[in-house]
């Protein structure tokens, strides 16, 4: 087995393979960044809607609760299939990466909205009452009192979520998106040893994920103590 690895290694780590893996890593990173970026914005929006009290927004609140609860309770693989089969007839010719990106955003919005919501709710009730008696409007209270106080509760679990998320994108390989996992499969199909192929891919994921998970741990320590 060892001989095989040693024998294949020079060819495996050749220029073309490295570029190929690099591009795949780029797609993994793209899905993660777009997913978390969109997820954070939409998640924030959803979390804020859930904090409102007005009766007019009641149906909207109900809708987002159902959305969040549902998408947190189905496997990412199933989301991928649903989006695939829903988008194809609606917008024919959508790229596979596009479909995967939409799925990723749906998932991250649901999870990040919960992270943000618990951050918003961590701000003591008294701060809200204080703002209310000073005649703050809902938006003023959110932007001047609640959000500035909740980011330190939101950031550590959000970073931890992104770490989970990088790994979840590996399922997009099933659609045929050439991200890291699919690249690994292709390399192994081309005849490289699975240990080499998947080992290299694991290493790539590790390089993406490890610094971020250290950062998440650092944030948690740093923000909790103060």
């Amino acid at each position, binding site marked *: *087995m060892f001989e*095989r690895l040693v024998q294949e290694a020079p060819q495996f780590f050749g220029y073309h393979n490295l570029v190929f893996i690099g591009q795949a890593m780029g797609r993994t990173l793209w899905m993660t960044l777009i997913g978390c970026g969109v997820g954070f914005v939409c998640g924030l929006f959803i979390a804020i809607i859930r904090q409102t009290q007005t009766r007019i927004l009641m149906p909207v609140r109900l809708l987002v609760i159902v959305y969040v*609860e*549902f998408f947190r*309770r*189905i*496997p*990412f*693989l*199933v*989301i991928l*299939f*649903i989006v695939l*089969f*829903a988008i194809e*007839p*609606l917008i024919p010719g959508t790229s596979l990466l596009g479909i995967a990106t939409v799925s990723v955003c749906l998932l991250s919005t649901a999870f990040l909205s919960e992270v943000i919501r618990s951050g918003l709710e961590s701000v003591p009730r008294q701060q809200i009452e204080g703002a209310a008696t000073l005649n703050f409007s809902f938006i003023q209270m959110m932007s001047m009192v609640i959000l500035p106080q909740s980011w330190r509760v939101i950031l550590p679990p959000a970073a931890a979520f992104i*770490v989970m998320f*990088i*790994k*979840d994108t*590996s*399922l997009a*390989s*099933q659609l045929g998106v050439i991200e*890291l*996992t699919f690249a*690994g*499969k292709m390399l*192994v199909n081309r005849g490289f*040893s*699975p*240990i080499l192929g*998947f*080992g290299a*891919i*694991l290493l790539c*994921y*590790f390089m993406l*994920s*490890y610094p971020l*998970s250290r950062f998440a741990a650092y944030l948690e320590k740093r923000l909790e103590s103060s």
Partner: protein
Amino acid sequence: MEYTFQFAAVFRELPYLLGGAALTLGIAFTSFWGGAVIGVLGAVAKVNGKRVARRIASAYVVFFTNTPALVQIFLLYYALPDVGILLDPLVAVVVGLTLNSGAYLTEILRAGVISVRRSEIEAATALNMSRFQILLYVILPHIAKTIYAPLSNFFVWLVLGSSLAALFGVEELTGRAINISTENLRSIETFLVVAVIYALLTLIASATLALVGRWAFRVDAKVL
């Protein structure tokens, strides 16, 4: 663009799908308890172990929590035959998920162990409790309380994560959904129904766990 949903073809297969759901739960349970054994060992090693044990446990956790389970299982499934070990797909998936759970549960349990406050143990000692009594009445309840919520979240994650078994041809819930949809060509309907089954499955799991938590550990867990 017109599309009429037709769920009848899917509902006909409901018993078949529910059979898959049973396997899904089976995979999740097995990996959870397997992981719990590893997790206890890992947490003890990380909190009380010698330097070497601590290092090994840390490396294990860091590796498994920073790489995707899917690729780990690919490696298990395709690389082990090179050294003469042929794994059944289901076994490969369960082994892979168990190793993953072990890593996450190590972290969850460790957080529980270090959350026990010295002052409480001192108070118990001052009340003349024996070491066993302290463990039973002070330490374990405290750990149970801290780890309860992350533990039940993790179990839900595991139920959802077990769907990757479908990619290895295991006929659990997602696997059977793929089988059906290639036959009846009602893909959207099939996967929507399966999504609802997953949502119900995890809702029931969370609610049960929350009830158990309330009853056994007096954890203030939200049932829904």
